[in-house]
């Protein structure tokens, strides 16, 4: 019997993110927690979930203990339905075949924009981060779920650089910029689950994770939080979910 309280933030994030997916969906997953969460959902309740990787894979089934070090490694193709070029798989986003894009980010803001390019002024950056990869394409072209650790320096009013667009500056600014489809749908953290309010397109808390108060959440967030009228409480991870996460990632490659 597993001790329910005894899980890492990354394990919690993986489990809560996996719950956002439904059977039959086509999911474009980034490496790390998104890949693990999509695999967890597929094994637990969504056998018909189709996972796409930007390396060029349709219908991946990742093997327990053999998590790939990136979405471009041969391990990503195990038992897949199809292997194709990376431009081709990204074009599936543009054509509209992808139900959910699933990724992480270094920094997120109140409109769900993600930064994975620069910390500080882009002209004289404090830190040059790796960059967009397929993140910008996923965020521009699909409904997106973001999974990330909740820290004040990561949850900011305005990101230093919009690498992957959420609702840009709120309201209809995303659409007006030419991004006609998609948008950030959920942000899942180790403290709470967030959605976006329909009109202003600003982030709002829809459910608090077990043991997290409004005050603690606000203290760890760099902008004033809105709470949904019917604020929920997240169900804690089940033993089954935890067991499976640990079976998939026994070496804690993604869930340390």
């Amino acid at each position, binding site marked *: 019997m597993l001790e329910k309280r005894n899980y890492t933030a990354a394990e919690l994030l993986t489990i809560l993110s996996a719950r956002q997916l439904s059977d039959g969906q086509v999911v474009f997953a980034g490496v790390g927690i998104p890949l693990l969460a999509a695999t967890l959902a597929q094994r637990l309740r969504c056998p018909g979930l189709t996972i796409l990787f930007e*390396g060029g894979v349709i219908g991946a089934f990742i093997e327990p203990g053999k998590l790939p*070090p990136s979405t471009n490694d041969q391990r990503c193709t195990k038992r897949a339905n199809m292997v194709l070029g990376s*431009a081709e798989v990204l074009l599936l*986003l543009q054509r509209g075949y992808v139900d959910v894009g699933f990724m992480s980010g270094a920094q997120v803001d109140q409109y769900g924009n993600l930064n994975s390019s620069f910390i500080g002024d882009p002209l004289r950056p404090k830190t040059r981060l790796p960059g967009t990869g397929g993140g910008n*394409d996923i965020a521009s072209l699909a409904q997106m779920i973001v999974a990330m650790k909740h820290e004040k320096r990561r949850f900011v009013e305005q990101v230093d650089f919009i690498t992957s667009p959420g609702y840009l500056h709120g309201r209809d600014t995303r659409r007006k910029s030419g991004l*006609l489809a998609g948008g950030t749908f959920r942000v899942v953290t180790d403290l709470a689950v967030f959605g976006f309010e329909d009109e202003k397109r600003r982030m709002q808390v829809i459910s608090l994770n077990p043991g997290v108060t409004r005050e603690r959440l606000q203290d760890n967030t760099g902008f004033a939080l809105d709470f949904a009228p019917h604020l929920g409480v997240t169900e804690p991870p089940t033993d089954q979910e935890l067991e499976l996460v640990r079976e998939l990632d026994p070496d804690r490659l993604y869930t340390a």
Partner: protein
Amino acid sequence: MVETEGKSIDTHGYLELRQELLRRDRSLRDKVVSLEEATSFVRDGDLVGIGGSTMSRTPMGMIWALIRAGRKRLSCSRSIMSSDGDLLLAGGICDRVVTSWFSQGILWGVSKVMRHYVETGNVRYDEWSHMAMGMRFRAGAMGVPFMPIRSMLGSDVQKQRPEAIEIDCPFTGEKLLLVPALNPDVALIHVQRCDAYGNAQIDGLQFMDIDLAMAANKVILTTERIVSNDQIRRAPDQTKIPFFAVDAVVELPFGCAPHECYGVYEPMLRHMEYYVALVNGDPVKGMQQYMDRFVHGPKSWSEFLALLGIEELLEAARAGESIYDA
């Protein structure tokens, strides 16, 4: 070198592109050269396109040889860059990278080597979305000056790239982003097998390599194995790059080490972990130490492989072949 609106330093007029192709000897001929000889196909200042992605089918041996040959001022473009990018920068042969993502790998955080060279302004990093990189190579392969895309719009990635142009579609009025063609002077691509003429077969993930080969003005292939033309003809559907697009062929077993080659070997993760700890500990001294020992030290590529160790090579090969297990 600063782009202004509509001016891409990587995009050429159509006649120039055709002239470059006319100058090449595209006949059916033996193109096999040594790794050292192949470096002469790359000139200082060239725009180089690199095949594979992240740690997969990276032409590491070719990059290793170019550093040893002391090329200068290369602009290097790749879908996603890993430790190959670190080597290009620390090797002093590259002053601009054009890519969508650059770090050693997601497992190891941010590359301190990339940070060191880019944050000091010694190397320019042009960031494009992954799909934009693909469409830039595709436009180059198609012989057209641009492709329209629907990503990057509204983001700061777009704002940093004035050479990409936003237009209102003449048919629908919708906003589109035109990304300029990328026609590298030379492409470096590693494949599982090809014949002496350059008919190349790629197993598994092909990334952007076919567009890259067709876009480039010259292609250097490194290959795990040179096979006969008869063997190529037995499975022509497996041939992904035609001989007439290829200028040089180098037989180079384990040519992606310490990265992976689909179906042949997985990444040599123990070496990668050693490497990352060394160079992210100190991007200057650590990298110097690595270059001395693993790039400039060995007399040949085989001697470099010997430094990785037979145990690690065999382990990687066993894992690589396991992709074909039921």
